[in-house]
Structures are given as C-alpha cells and as structure tokens.
C-alpha cells in the first residue's frame, strides 16, 4: 500500500496522534493553513476559523508569512507539553489565501472522513 495522507483540520490532530489511534497505519496527514507566525524552527498556521496549528519545521523549510500552505507531516507532541503539532515533511505554497476558499477545504475534510473508503484505509 502506498502512503496515504488524509486531509484534516486542527480538531482531528488527536485522532491521528500515534498514541491514540490504535492500529491506524498512518499518522501522516495533510493540513491547510495560512502562515501566521515564524519562529526559527517552528511556525504557526491558522486554519480558517478552526484554530491554529504549530509546525515543527525541517531545516530546509522555507515558509513565507501570510501565504496559504499545504503541509504534509506527522502528528507529533510539542516540546514542553504544549500539546500537539505537526512535524513537517513537505509543504506546498498556494500563494495568496484570498485566492482559495477555506470552506471548500472544510468540506473536503468532512467528505474525506465521512466517505473514507475512497480516501484512506481507516482503522
């Protein structure tokens, strides 16, 4: 089976965390958001009206403030018990957030998990 990266929102982080997901085969996910802060080796993206997610960056990640990005990464614990974040494996820059409709993405996430048989092999 090839690698599957289901699209999620911040509220799904828990379900895809390695410890809580039981026998789930993948903890690698995709998430979409606007870069809202950059702090060296971490960054924050804002996911529409669904809250923020902290990203643990790779040395070669080049993010720009205010851009809409799609992140492929693994759900991970943040240092110092600050909850869950995403360890970045790769990012795609989609440019100006105004050019894409975040509500469409929310619908995609909803469809992904509701009709998962065409999107990923669930537990």
């Amino acid at each position, binding site marked *: 089976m090839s690698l599957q990266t289901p699209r999620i929102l911040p509220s799904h982080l828990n379900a895809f965390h390695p410890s809580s997901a039981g026998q789930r085969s993948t903890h690698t996910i995709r998430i979409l958001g606007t870069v809202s802060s950059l702090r060296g080796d971490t960054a924050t993206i804002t996911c529409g009206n669904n809250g923020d997610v902290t990203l643990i960056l790779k040395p070669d990640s080049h993010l720009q403030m205010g851009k809409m990005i*799609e992140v492929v990464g693994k759900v991970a614990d943040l240092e110092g018990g600050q909850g869950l974040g995403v360890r970045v494996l790769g990012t*795609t820059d989609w440019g100006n957030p105004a*050019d894409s409709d975040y509500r469409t993405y929310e619908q995609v996430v909803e469809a992904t998990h509701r009709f998962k048989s065409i999107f990923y092999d669930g537990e």
Partner: protein
Amino acid sequence: MDGGYNSYGGGGGGGFMSGETSSPSGGRSENRDNKTLRPVTVKQIADATQPYPEAPFLIDNAEVNHVLFVGQVRNISSQSTNITYKIDDGTGEIEVKKWVDSATRDSMDTDEKGPGDGKSEVVLNGYARVFGAIKTFSNKRYVGAHSVRPLSDLNELHAHLLESTAVHLFFTQGPPGGGGSGAGGNAAGGDAVMGGADDYSGAGPNKALMGVSPLARKIYNLLKSEAQDDAGMEMQHIASRLSLPTMDVARAGEELLNAGIIFTTMNEHTWAILEY
C-alpha cells in the same frame, strides 16, 4: 480518383467499426459506459476491480474507461518514448505514463508556444491534473495519460475531491433527486418495473434513469403516476402540470426519448413510458 478515395475511406471506416464492435464483446453490452470520463481519487484507481483479465475496470461496480484525477508529482522520468510521472493525491500513489508522440509534439511546437512546453510546465512536487485510462502492465497498474497538465488553483484540487465523492455516492447510493424521498421513489419505481418484467431487461429503465437530469426524472415520475390512456401525455399538458416552461419540458423529454425510457405516440410531443 474519386473511387480511390471512397474505397480508402470505406476501408478506414471498416477497420474502425471492427475495432468498436470487438471491444464491448469482451463483456456486457452496455457500451454507453465505455465513453465515460470519471473523476476519481488515486485510491479508487488502486481499488478498481477487474472481473477477468482484459475486462473493463469497475469502480463502485460501474465500468470506467477514462479517469480524471489530480495529485502532486513525486517523480518525473523522461524516456525517449514516454514520460513517467508518479502522482500522489494523498489517497495513494500511481504511475502515469504519457507517450511522447513525435507527430503531435511537432505540431504543438508550431501551433503553440515553445518546444516541449507541455512537459516542462509540470514540475516536481507541483500539482498536476491527469486525464487517461487505467491500464495494467505485468500486474502493475498505471494510467495511460492523454493529458498531464499543471494545476495551479487550490480550489480546483478541492473541487475535484468533492466531485469524486459526489460521483462515488451517485454510484453507491443512487442519484440525489429531490431529497431522500425522490431517490426512494425512483427505487420503488424501478422495483415495480423489475417485478413486471422478468430477466429480460432487469433494472434497465431504472438504471437508465440514473443518467438523466432531475427534471427528466420528474417527468418520468409524472408519466408514471398520472392516470392516462395508451397515448400517454402531451408535452404542453406535462408543462402545465409541473408548472414549467414548455422549452424545458421539451428538452428533458428529448433526454428521456434518447435514453429509451419513453416513446412518442400520437405525435412527436406526446409521450408514454416505454415498458417491456
């Protein structure tokens, strides 16, 4: 001279015809489905089943020939005869082969922009939209692409995923219709038809009905429920019963006629349901 051209054309036509008729002979005779272009996810391609070797692929029990999908390009390898891409859409990964046709490339060079623009626009880790047919080669599934083009609008990606879901639901749960009751009504209608006819056409009319517009289904349901004589109903009458413009009713009626669900009786604007 003339005869030479004619016989040449006839020969070409004959060859095409024989190719056409030999392909559906592999299985069921529903070759209307063979012309479909279906939006899918990569996982659906990987999960597609093939009842026997060389048979058309089935997704949700519906035959698919051409598929349309979007994904990120994970690898590009250019050979002299083809370019192979690895496409990952988050639901799986699949190889896509685009044959390099020297004739088309030459014409593209002259007709369009620069040389080789078609392939240089698709970049590694960028998104691409692929349109092609599912193929197998030594037990490995791949897509023989007619077109691979870059995708730059995120909304197109998301719209595609939603579209794939909608089509999946259409095949697994039936057409949306006017809410749950509409779909239920259709199913019931189909059952009645099936009960009336034996194995001759099975769910024929009901299945055909899945492919028509909601308005056409509305007309079908009216024709089915309305008491009428053998002559069926006149277009104007249907329009007034449904309070719809005659033009729309005419168009939807045309659709039902073409699908073989209704037939004309007294004149071309009077329709009755075709029941076996």
